[in-house]
């Protein structure tokens, strides 16, 4: 079993490196975009609220494969900026995941008592000051567990990029079968690889939860 891993380490290493890169880039993109969308959805400006709601409704109800199809096949026809498959895969994952991040952040914001918003606004804080100094610090504790599971799904969703010529962990199996290696063992190692990738995610969740529960 180990032999298969060693013989094909080039595949495994490139595959998982790409997975990690996809995950980190798409994850950061989704966190930033999703938080912005959440801010839009709770903002006092109706047009922004509508835009945020529209985005979330569309992306939450579209299968991820369809989003990938769009970026793989429809995007080039738009003749916008020509970008690599890898970049398009990052975009697809980030934009899709942002809708879920938005909903996690928004429901976290909703756990904060409306009186906290009112007191903050009454003191003269701007909308963004209210969010950053009063609301988000109180929302974070309830946000961390669901956010971890959103990022967990993102990690697994990176395998869909395999169907679109990005060599990441999900493409290791087909590549192995081309080399005539036993698939079951290959899959076993891929599962182990994903298992290992989840560890830092869970550890971060624990650390954050601990930190914010002490800070009340």
């Amino acid at each position, binding site marked *: 079993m180990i032999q298969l891993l060693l013989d094909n380490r080039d595949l495994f290493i490139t595959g998982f490196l790409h997975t990690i890169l996809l995950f980190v880039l798409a994850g950061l993109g989704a966190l930033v975009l999703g938080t912005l969308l959440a801010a839009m959805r709770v903002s006092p400006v109706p047009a922004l609220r509508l835009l945020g709601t529209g985005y979330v409704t569309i992306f939450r109800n579209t299968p991820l494969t369809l989003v990938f199809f769009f970026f793989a096949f429809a995007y080039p026809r738009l003749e916008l900026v020509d970008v690599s498959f890898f970049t398009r895969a990052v975009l697809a994952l980030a934009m899709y995941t942002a809708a879920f991040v938005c909903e996690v952040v928004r429901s976290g914001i909703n756990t904060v008592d409306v*009186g906290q918003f009112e*007191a903050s606004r*009454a*003191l003269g804080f701007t909308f963004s000051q209210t969010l950053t100094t*009063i609301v988000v610090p*109180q929302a974070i504790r309830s946000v961390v567990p669901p956010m971890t599971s959103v990022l967990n799904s993102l990690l697994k969703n990176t395998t869909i990029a395999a169907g679109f010529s990005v060599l990441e962990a999900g493409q290791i199996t087909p590549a192995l079968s081309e080399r005539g290696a036993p698939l079951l063992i290959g899959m076993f190692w891929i599962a182990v690889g994903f298992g290992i990738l989840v560890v830092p995610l869970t550890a971060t969740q624990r650390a954050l939860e601990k930190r914010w529960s002490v800070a009340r």
Partner: protein
Amino acid sequence: MSAPATADPPMIRMVGVHKHFGSLHVLRDINLDVARGEVVVVLGPSGSGKSTLCRSINRLEPIDEGRIEIDGTPLPEEGRALARLRADVGMVFQQFNLFAHKTIAENVELAPVRVRRISRPDAHAAAMQLLTRVGISDQADKYPAQLSGGQQQRAAIARALAMRPKVMLFDEPTSALDPEMVQEVLDVMTALAREGMTMLVVTHEMGFARRAAHRVVFMSDGEIVEDSAPDQFFTAPRSERAKDFLGKILTH
């Protein structure tokens, strides 16, 4: 007490103000001036629109029609100008609404530092002075949840005063308190009134109204039904609705 006479623009001016919640007409043609240094108590049955009136003054509730001015300046639309104006209008809520993740001292310092750009040491010194003034300087490092209701409300008053507001709005500041804590909060408010702070106070505390108010405004069904001196209102109310209301309150 007689109202201080002044030639300045009124601190609060409401002209022809209307407000609806859906089909519910909660403020009907409200016309109200509060002069600089004046203390006005707003009375009225539950649901008569007192909170909405109070909250419309710093635009926590936007109005549908009419005009509201603070110290001669019309209320701006939502945005930075409104935030600046709100900084000059202190507000005290029934539920205190202290920031749960900040200590009492931090609650008082936060807005002066972030909104007024006062240095943290200066803001802290001012906060400690204010906490001493409301009698809870020994609670400065605790979190709101560790304080009694009366202490929390006094901290909330200190937080509002830290912005050096031109006017203070109180929306039933003692209604959420256990009876034994009402007086400590009223004492702070009475002292504030004596120092000349302009105040609009929604309350059912008749003692406070008699002692500290220059005027009593009685609301019913979204309208201002009476606007008179406290003595006159309590001894000789003009309207049936006010008589009815006083009858219920005083027998309690």
